[in-house]
């Protein structure tokens, strides 16, 4: 068994809305091993970004809070550590890059200062050493004229360059886990490929683990080792990339993959799944996907399925695969 570096168990995260607690994440579980890239996919609003914010515990200024479950980083349950200890993990052991490179950097601070901040606090370097390290990082992420860029402001850089800076910031303290939340969604297609290549290269070099959050199955296929599929704040399927694309189990996953055009296959329209993501404050009773599922039976609308190991290392929560029942359809 490979070393598991991050393990999320039965995570529950709540938000407050109009004096009402609404559970957005309900029992999310998965793990990442050393040097592995795990993809987290789902439609927008399924809770994949919130999962990453829960791991980093970045709830300040929102009503969000973790109300149940555990998150083990190495052997420590980081849902239990104090805010002070958590700050030492953020940016040092678990680092994060975000979707919007245009707004994720502070517009009134020079790139160098923004990059040197985590280096100074986490690695304890003095200004001179921090600066050297920062320039090295910029060079490492493929930024030309890195010495000059240190003194420039974010608005002087292109979107792709800014995302490289974000990667440099995240990688600056050599983290064990990198969480990348839709890192290329806001970029042009050509830039997307460059950034993904860069991330892959750095990940290999450092043997770092990565949680890659995306709604783009193309990115998943290209980058990830394993995939976790989320729907309505729950994990519905987990498999290796190969297995998932070869034979998706959950009807939702099948729908997702069906909506990806395959090269050489001519289709007039993308198949999309009918209906919409349920409102978290008004969840359907049984399986949350049942209202949109073409295979749903009366039971599906009544009881929520639990996670099952359908095949070796293949997990799925769907009544279709519950051995105690005979619902399997073609």
């Amino acid at each position: 068994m490979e070393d598991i570096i991050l393990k999320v168990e039965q995570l529950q995260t709540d938000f407050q809305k109009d004096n009402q607690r609404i559970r957005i994440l309900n029992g999310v579980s998965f793990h990442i091993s050393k040097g592995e890239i795990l993809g987290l996919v789902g439609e927008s609003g399924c809770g994949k970004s919130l999962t990453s914010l829960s791991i980093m515990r970045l709830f300040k200024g929102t009503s969000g809070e973790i109300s149940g479950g555990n998150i083990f980083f190495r052997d420590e349950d980081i849902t239990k550590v104090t805010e002070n200890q958590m700050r030492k993990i953020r940016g040092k052991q678990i680092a994060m890059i975000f979707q919007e490179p245009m707004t994720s950097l502070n517009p009134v601070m020079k790139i160098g200062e923004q990059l040197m901040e985590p280096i100074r606090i986490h690695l304890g370097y003095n200004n001179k050493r921090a600066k050297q390290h920062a320039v090295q990082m910029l060079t490492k992420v493929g930024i030309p004229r890195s010495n000059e860029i240190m003194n420039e402001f974010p608005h002087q850089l292109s979107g792709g360059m800014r995302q490289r800076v974000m990667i440099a910031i995240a990688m600056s303290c050599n983290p064990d886990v990198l969480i990348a939340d839709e890192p290329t969604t806001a970029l042009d297609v050509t830039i997307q490929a460059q950034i993904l290549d860069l991330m892959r290269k750095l990940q290999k070099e450092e043997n770092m683990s990565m949680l890659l959050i995306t709604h783009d199955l193309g990115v998943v296929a290209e980058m990830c080792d394993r995939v976790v599929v989320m729907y309505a704040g729950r994990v519905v399927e987990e498999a290796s990339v190969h297995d998932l694309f070869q034979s998706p189990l959950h009807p939702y996953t099948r729908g997702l993959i069906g909506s990806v055009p395959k090269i050489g296959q001519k289709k007039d329209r993308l198949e999309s799944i009918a209906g919409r993501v349920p409102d978290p404050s008004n969840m359907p009773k049984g399986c949350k996907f049942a209202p949109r599922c073409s295979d749903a039976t009366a039971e599906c609308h009544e009881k929520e399925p639990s996670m099952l190991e359908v095949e070796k290392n293949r997990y799925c929560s769907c009544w279709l695969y519950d051995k105690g029942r005979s619902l399997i359809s073609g």
Partner: protein
Amino acid sequence: MHPKILILKGVAFVLRYIFKRVLEMIPTLLIVSIIIFYFIHLIPGDPVRLVVGPDATSEEVSMIREEMGLNDPIFIQYMSYMQGILQGDLGKSLKTGLPVMEMFENRFKNSIYLTLFSIIWAFIIGIIIGTFSAVFKNKLPDNIGMLTAVSGISVPGFWLGLILIQFFSVQLGWLPTGGADSWKHFILPSIALGAGIMAMIARFTRSSLLETLGSDFIRTARAKGLREMIVIPKHALRNSMVSVVTITGLQFGFLLGGSVVVETVFSFPGMGRLLIDSIAFRDYPVIQALLLLFSIQFIVVNLIVDILYSFLNPKIRTISS
């Protein structure tokens, strides 16, 4: 390019920008001066009578009138007035006979100090209250802070001044009731004058900071593992500062207007009280010079705010270089 050359280029650009803005100011100032000059002549009553007194004969009156140049067409009068201003001559007070320039000297200094003290404390306290309110949004510190702020906006400055006098000067005897002889004389007037602005700065800081705190780069800063003590002042407040400084500058007129009232309450020897006294006496040359000075001050402050704004905002700063 060598960094030194870059800096020199930047300085040159800034100077050019300032020069351009000063040039743009001139037409406004000219129009303002014409309006003031014309308006002063609309004030009913005869300035000559004020000089010569009620017992003078009509010959004396017309002689003095000729001497003061009041028989010339208004345009000529304006031109000679402007000529005087360029040579530092603002005319003579009808009441005291002293040159207006001389009357201004100390009063101007006093008023500037009063304004500066007021704006400095208002700025510091306003930002602190606004920051606490934003950080503890909808909690007790926020409610207290915002209640203080809306009260500060609603309280009449002159009344606050009277209450302060009653409490600190009359009852406790700690501070003088009026005058401008030592730093102690500036404390109460500064409080009365700055209260409203402090409140506005607090409210504005809060809303601006709340907006900033919701932005992506604040999340980035937190994700880097920075403590809130760093995130709030260094990352959030610095961003909000651009707009807070602008707003503060725009409230400057409020301060000038307030100074008239507050200076009257504290019998403070400044420009504001001089205006009221001069209006009561119809001391035209003084009124005219004061109005001109107030509007110049206001325009100049707005200019400074504009320049400051472009300095604080790197987007504008770097587009230049």
